[in-house]
Every structure is written in structure tokens, then in C-alpha cells.
């Protein structure tokens, strides 16, 4: 499918804004999941600001598409999108993970408008998403369910239970997206727990598999549209990404899985945002 330059540019700028919002949440000295939030920022921008049916006036609109962050620790990127939809005030960004804030350390549907489930204990989000997808099917709803999984998270056995069950139920209204950044909490996935032949595994479990560069907006949009169009069963988008994408000091490093930036790094990060904006706008 062809996507207009305007659309692509608009979404690229949105993705930059999402990363800027992430920075706003974790100023120097404040620990946060920078790496796994920025790796999936482009996909999240495409979902929330183009692909998904969302209602800016009603986070609980029954006719909305759903997004569940199975890799709940990267919820900063979801907050960064939800604030753009106006689901809570921008002032909340500075209060993330505080006692009085709306934005909890992991996704909490009771506290935060726009959060669809409780996740954070890894491996459960795809199962919850399948339940939502089955419920929507019973209701004859046309809405779609999206789940974001981490590649380290794929070591959780429950993920594969859900992968099998989604296939059994031919849940074509369910799309999983794997943030395939190759780095987990303490080191690379290759070093910690290498899972070989990932694409073949999903295929063998009966899923439609689409492999993309998770930072290429055209490829992202194409994959999301293809996933929605595929009616034979569930689709997984294997998105090759870079952990800490756009922040050179953090790219590909496990250290920034959950860390605080120094003053110096924070300055660099904002400079990166400014440079990217200039580049895209040009």
C-alpha cells in the first residue's frame, strides 16, 4: 500500500513527540525504562495516531481498538501516547511513579485512563488480549486488539500457551507485535537466553508472520494494515528495533533498560529530539 509523504512525516513527528514525552517523564536522576520504551515508540505512534480506532473524548468508547502492553515495564511509551490523546493532563508526566500521580510504574487500568488491563508480570498480556479478542468476536465487534511483547518476555511459557490458543481460535482480530530489540534487563538476549528461529516458531504455531524494520514508518504502516486485512488467524509483527533508539548513549545497551540519565546524557537526549525534528521537517 502507498502512504502519503504527509502521513509518514506526520507520524514520524508524532514518534519524536512520543520520545520527547518519555524524556519529560524521566529527568536526570529519575529511574525509568528508557530503552524498551524508545525502541517501540515508532510502532506505538503508528498505532495510536493512525491505525487504531481511538476516541479522544472517551477512552472507554466501546467501539475502540485495544492496545495492551504485555511488556508492561515499557508503559512510559504508552503514557507518552495517551497524553497526546488528551486522556490526562501533561502535568502528570512529571509525576510518573509518584504517590500522588496517575501514572503507575506498570500499567494500571484503575488509575490511568486509556490503560486497558493490568500487566507487568511478564507473559500475561497476550492471553488477556486473546480474551478481549474472543469477547469482541462474541459481540460481533469489528474492533481489533494489539499486544506489544518484548523479545526477552518470549521466554515466559505462558506466551506460547497464548500463541497456541490464539491459533486454535483463529483470532484474526488479534495482532501481536514483538519489540525485537535483542536486549533484555541485564544483557543481550543472545547472552541471557537465546531463542532461536523465532520467526519459524511463530509460523509453526500457526500465525501469520510479518517481519519489518520497526523504525521504518512505511514498513510499520504496511505491516499493521496487512495484519488487519489477514482474516485466517492471528498475525505477529516481528519488529526489528534498537533498544534506546534515537539516544546514542543508550542504543543497544542493557544498562538503559531501567536507569537514570545523567545531566549530560539528558542534554544530549533533548538535542537528539531537536535534531530529529529538524531532519524530518526538512
Amino acid at each position, binding site marked *: 500500500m502507498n502512504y502519503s509523504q504527509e502521513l509518514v512525516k506526520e507520524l514520524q513527528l508524532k514518534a519524536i513527540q512520543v520520545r520527547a514525552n518519555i524524556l519529560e517523564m524521566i529527568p536526570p536522576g529519575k529511574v525509568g525504562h528508557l530503552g524498551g520504551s524508545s525502541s517501540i515508540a515508532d510502532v506505538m505512534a503508528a498505532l495510536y495516531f493512525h491505525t487504531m480506532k481511538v476516541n479522544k473524548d472517551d477512552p472507554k468508547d466501546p467501539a475502540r481498538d485495544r492496545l495492551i502492553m504485555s511488556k508492561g515495564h515499557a508503559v512510559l511509551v504508552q503514557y507518552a501516547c495517551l497524553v497526546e490523546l488528551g486522556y490526562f493532563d501533561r502535568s502528570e508526566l512529571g509525576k510518573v511513579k509518584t504517590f500522588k500521580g496517575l501514572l503507575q510504574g506498570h500499567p494500571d487500568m484503575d488509575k490511568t485512563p486509556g490503560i486497558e488491563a493490568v500487566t507487568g*508480570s511478564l507473559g*500475561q498480556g497476550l*492471553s488477556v488480549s486473546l480474551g478481549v479478542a*474472543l469477547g*469482541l468476536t*462474541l459481540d460481533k465487534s469489528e474492533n481489533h486488539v494489539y499486544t506489544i511483547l518484548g523479545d526477552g518476555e518470549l521466554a515466559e511459557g*505462558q506466551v506460547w500457551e497464548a500463541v497456541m490458543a490464539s491459533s486454535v481460535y483463529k483470532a484474526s482480530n488479534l495482532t501481536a507485535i514483538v519489540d525485537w530489540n535483542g536486549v533484555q534487563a541485564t544483557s543481550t538476549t543472545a547472552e541471557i537466553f537465546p531463542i532461536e528461529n523465532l520467526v519459524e516458531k511463530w509460523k509453526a504455531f500457526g500465525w501469520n508472520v510479518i517481519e519489518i524494520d520497526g523504525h521504518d514508518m512505511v514498513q510499520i504502516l504496511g505491516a499493521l494494515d496487512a495484519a488487519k486485512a489477514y482474516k485466517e488467524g492471528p498475525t505477529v509483527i516481528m519488529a526489528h528495533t534498537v533498544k534506546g533508539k534515537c539516544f546514542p548513549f543508550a542504543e543497544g545497551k542493557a544498562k538503559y533498560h531501567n536507569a537514570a540519565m545523567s545531566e549530560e546524557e539528558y542534554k544530549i537526549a533533548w538535542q537528539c529530539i531537536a535534531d530529529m525534528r529538524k531532519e524530518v521537517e526538512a
Partner: protein
Amino acid sequence: MRTTDSLRTTYGETLVELGKDNKDIVLLEADLGNSTMSKLFAAEYPDRYFQMGIAEQNMASVSAGLSLTGKVPFMNSFAVFASGRAYDQIRSSITIANLNVKICGSSAGLSDYGDGKTHQSIDDIALMQVLPHMTVLSPCDAVETEKMVKAMVEQKGPMYIRINRNDLPIVTNPDEEYHIGKMTQMVDGKDVVIFATGVMVQQSMEAAKILGKEGISARVVNVSTIKPLDTKALEAYAEGMKGVVTAEEHNVIGGLGSAVCSALSKKRVPIEILGVGDRFGTSAENYSILLKHYGLEAEDVAKKVRSVLAYK
């Protein structure tokens, strides 16, 4: 309408009855439908029955997802697997979010006598009652099971019901009004009160007869809602008693006994806890052998009553 003295068949039949008008009721099963009796629902409403295979963790989180779309999911398995195998999924996906998921722990306690310790649940009450938001139910007969399942659909929130595999004598009154949280006096007495749950209600009523012959007047109260525990009713039933005995087919740690001790901790009344001890189950050729071996017969309850009355 109830057709049997079997708790599990009544459970299945009641869901079939309710499912006729309430299209939001959905069932999930981990391939034990012939035992949990979820198969009855499957036969009537196949579109609302989700066979999840032998994968309880996924089943629990899928139930959470279904409830997020307004369904009323009942997930079914043996009590050991429904509570323990899927514990973190129940904790995280279901109870933290306070979702309207109903969990049926079937073949609970020692009631799956032949299958032995891996299949006998002596810890499910403990696991479930420690979770905030969770309601824990333990019916003592089929009449109570029917009322309870209806109440589970009417009232929102995560709930766990533990169901005995064996037929049990009907002891509750079909005409009596029921609501979750209610505890019911089965036998009146003035010396000692026995708080019992599940199969131990019938055993405690037998014990009261034995004790009566000895001149000991024992009150028996059926505590079929273990959480939230009606502490006011508990205190009222214990008022003026020389002792309290609790009786359950469960570990003495973390079950009804623990809950009653906590609730009565400020009362100056001795309490004896009767349960399976702190040990796992074992195989036997019938249920009675296990009730005898684990000290869960009427005479064992009577002994605890004598013991609590001997306190100075």
C-alpha cells in the same frame, strides 16, 4: 432446579440454567470438563464455551480479557490447578484489576481421593483468601451450591468457589434466603461453637449429636463464605461460649481456622483448629478412608470440642 445431590453437577446445571437468559456468561475449561461438569454448559452453549487445553495460566488471563469486554467468565479446573497453577495470573491479570472473573476449584480438598497428593487441594483457600478483592466460597451441599452460583453471577468481582467432588447429604434449607457473606447456624448450642465449612459442616452436625449425648451443647455454624468473613456474625455466634472450634478440609495454616483466629483475636475465648494438619494428601480407595486418616470425622470434631472445653 436442582436435580441431584452432587455439588459439581449442580454447579454445571445452574450455569446452564443461568446461561439461558444471561448471554454474558462464558465458561473456560482446561480439559477436565467431565469432572468439573462444565461439559453441561458446553453441550448447551458451544459458542460461549472455550476449551483452553491443559494450560491453566493462559486460561486465567484469557478469562481476565473476556471480563474486560463485559463477559462473566467462569474458569474451571481442579482446585489445585485453578488456584495454584495459575496463581500469578489470578493475582496479576484478575485480582489486581478487580475483574469479574469466577474461578471454580473443583474436586477440592481430599475429595479426589484416588488421584493422591498432587490432585488434592489443601492450600487453595489460603492462596485465594490472601488476594485483595477476592471472595472465597465453600458450599457444603448442592442446595447451597445452586444459590451460591446464582449469587456469583449477580455480584461483581473476582470469586473463587471450591467444590467437593463427592455427593454430600443435603443439610441446608432450600427455602432460606442466601447472600454471599452469610453464615448460617445449622445447630444451636450454648457451650461451644463449631465454625465449619464444606464437608466439615455435615461432620460437625454429627459431632453435635455425639456431644449432646455427653451433655455438651454444641452450636454448629456453616461458614460458606470464608472471605469476606462476616466478623460481626462470627462474634455474635461466639458470644458467651466456653470455646470455639473451627473445622475444614484444608491445611490448618491459612484457611478458615486462621481467618477465625484473626477475627476473634481480641476475644478471650480458646480456639481449636481442626484441619488436615500441615501435610499433603494421599491416594485411597474411597473418600471415607481419607476423612478418617486426616482426622476429619465427626468424632475428631467432638474431640476438639472436648479439648477446647478443658482449657482453663
